């Protein structure tokens, strides 16, 4: 179960990032009635980042942010319009299609819909063995042995589950099968495209823990895509926040949550309902004003300016570049947030809801 690596690669891998994405652009042509070209959807606009080996990058974005498109552009199921995707030292965006098969032995994907990603007519055994069939020359017995191993790794008893079909599985079990398939070839990188969003809360926790466990045991790296910041918190070393096809902010996870620089990140954090763990008071989300802009017609300059409480004239004229504010912490904003704000005062004030005098704010800024 060891990762076979060419001899000299060992040293190289330590210093170079596992995945290096440079200036990825992906666009779709949107067609109106009669198949007439109505406009261009700027799904991904010039995204660049690095993912060091063994780390997890959480990519957070709402609808229309382009995060799923980015995932597909990285894994090359849709070739990006332009840009580089350097994976293990090789630009896979420039590779011809037939050479991509070898690359996919090292880069796999887990999807949002656990049942959609499994052929309903196949048995679990066949599903998990498929990558082995496509990439190795193992015979049937060897494949079966490996499948058993993989099912054990994901916490499914092989004897019970080998012969089952997806229709006989629960959501959590189906997703575990999908994960078993993804790790079959011992890849270096797994892209999780909203892999736990469709699962119930308690099952989400189980699967998140499974991801962590596999990360440690198999030395995996993850690109973990989600639509809210709370989900990726647990699992990420670095977090990237996407807005309408662009990177709003990227940096170490702790920093992003403790001291976000981009107003959009702040807005996302403020929108999460729940209890404040320090005060125990219900946190009342602060709402963002306005509707999300359309990817067909993004605003000029900074794409967040229509909803940003700090927007100025400059924001409409010049697109803010991604600048480094602290080591490794980048934000694309002309007027980034300054002081580390743990809890915004608005949410504290708003948290006094009709529960009466029982809820007292602990500290006011």
């Amino acid at each position, binding site marked *: 179960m060891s990762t076979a690596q060419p001899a000299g690669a060992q040293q190289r891998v330590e210093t170079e990032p596992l995945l290096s994405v440079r200036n990825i652009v992906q666009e779709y042509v949107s067609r109106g009635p009669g198949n007439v070209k109505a406009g261009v959807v700027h799904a991904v606009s010039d995204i660049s980042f690095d993912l060091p080996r063994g780390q997890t990058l959480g990519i957070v974005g709402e609808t229309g942010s382009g995060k799923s498109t980015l995932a597909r552009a990285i894994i090359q199921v849709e070739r990006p319009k332009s840009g580089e995707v350097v994976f293990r030292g090789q630009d896979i965006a420039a590779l011809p299609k037939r050479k991509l098969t070898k690359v996919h032995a090292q880069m796999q994907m887990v999807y949002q819909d656990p049942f*959609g990603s499994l052929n309903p007519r196949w048995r679990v055994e066949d599903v998990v063995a498929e990558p082995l069939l496509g990439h190795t020359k193992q015979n049937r017995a060897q494949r079966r042995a490996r499948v058993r191993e993989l099912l054990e790794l994901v916490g499914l008893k092989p004897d019970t589950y080998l012969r089952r079909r997806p229709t006989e599985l629960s959501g959590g079990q189906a997703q575990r099968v999908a994960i078993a398939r993804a790790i079959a070839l011992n890849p270096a990188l797994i892209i999780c495209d909203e892999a736990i969003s469709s699962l119930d809360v308690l099952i989400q926790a189980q699967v998140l823990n499974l991801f962590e466990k596999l990360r440690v045991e198999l030395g995996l790296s993850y690109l973990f895509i989600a639509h809210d910041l709370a989900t990726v918190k647990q699992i990420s070393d670095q977090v990237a926040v996407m807005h309408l096809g662009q990177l709003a902010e990227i940096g170490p996870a702790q920093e992003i949550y403790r001291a976000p620089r981009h107003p959009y990140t702040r807005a996302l954090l403020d929108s999460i309902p729940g209890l404040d763990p320090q005060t125990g008071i219900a946190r009342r989300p602060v709402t963002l004003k306005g509707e999300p802009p359309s990817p067909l017609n993004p605003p000029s300059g900074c794409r967040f300016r229509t909803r940003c409480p700090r927007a100025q004239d400059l924001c409409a004229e010049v697109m803010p570049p991604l600048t480094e504010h602290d080591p490794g912490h980048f934000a694309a904003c002309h007027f980034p947030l300054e002081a580390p704000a743990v809890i915004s005062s608005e949410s504290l004030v708003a948290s006094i809801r009709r529960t009466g005098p029982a809820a007292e704010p602990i500290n006011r800024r």
Partner: protein
Amino acid sequence: MAVADPATTVAALTSIDVSDRSIKWARLRKRLVVWIPAGFVVLLLLVCFVGPLVLPLPPPVGGSVLESQLPPGSPGHPLGTDVNGNDVLSRLVYGGRASLTVAIAVNVIGLVVGGVTGALSGYLGGTSDTIIMRVLDVFIAFPSLVLTIAIAQILGPSLPNTILALTAFAIPAVARIARSATLRVVNMPFVQAAELSGSPWWRILLRHIAPNITPQMLNFALLGMGIVIVTEGALSFLGMGIPAPNPSWGNMIYEGQQSLSATPLLVLWPSLALLVTVLAFNLLGENLRDEMSGR
């Protein structure tokens, strides 16, 4: 229909519920709707294909005029004879064999060739898809009956030529269906996952796409049986299908029509046979899909 029960006791809930019974009946009815036509089809196939080998049927052609137009119930001729002295029952059986041969052959060829074409087209997408579909569109654009008549005219009436003519319009129709079914499947994540797993295109088509479009294809094929049988009947009726004196239900109707006032039954038997057969296939086709996809 919700039933209110103010006295909410566990006993009330476990008592026999009317809705339970009505559901059981609905399910039984569903079963029957599949098994009765299926049974009939099996019977039909047995009679028409095995029958001539085992049953003591008089030959369907070459009867003497002396025995013409005997009424049903005559000794040796349970359904009587036609104007040429041939036994009607025998002609019905042999005619059924001819008609069904054409229908099965056309559907099988259509399913295989059309199915593969359509699935390939849907899976490949892009220019290949466009090219294939435009070619097929040309075929579909022709009124099917006119096309088959034209082909039959050019080639001349015979059983193999009839099959050929009918496949010309069966293949594009099946290909259309196969393509749309494939498009529905191809966008599912598991196909993408299969590609990422390194499965080559033929394995994806064979083991991922095909099993998931089979229920629809089968359904279409069974409904198609009815259409083909009727079309063959029309061709034979017009003299361009199975050539006389060999029987087919179509040309039996044609001949019977000529002596309609004297012997109306000669039209009735083949028409009835056509009707019941087409109905059976249609019922089977409609309901088998529900069964196969497990409701």
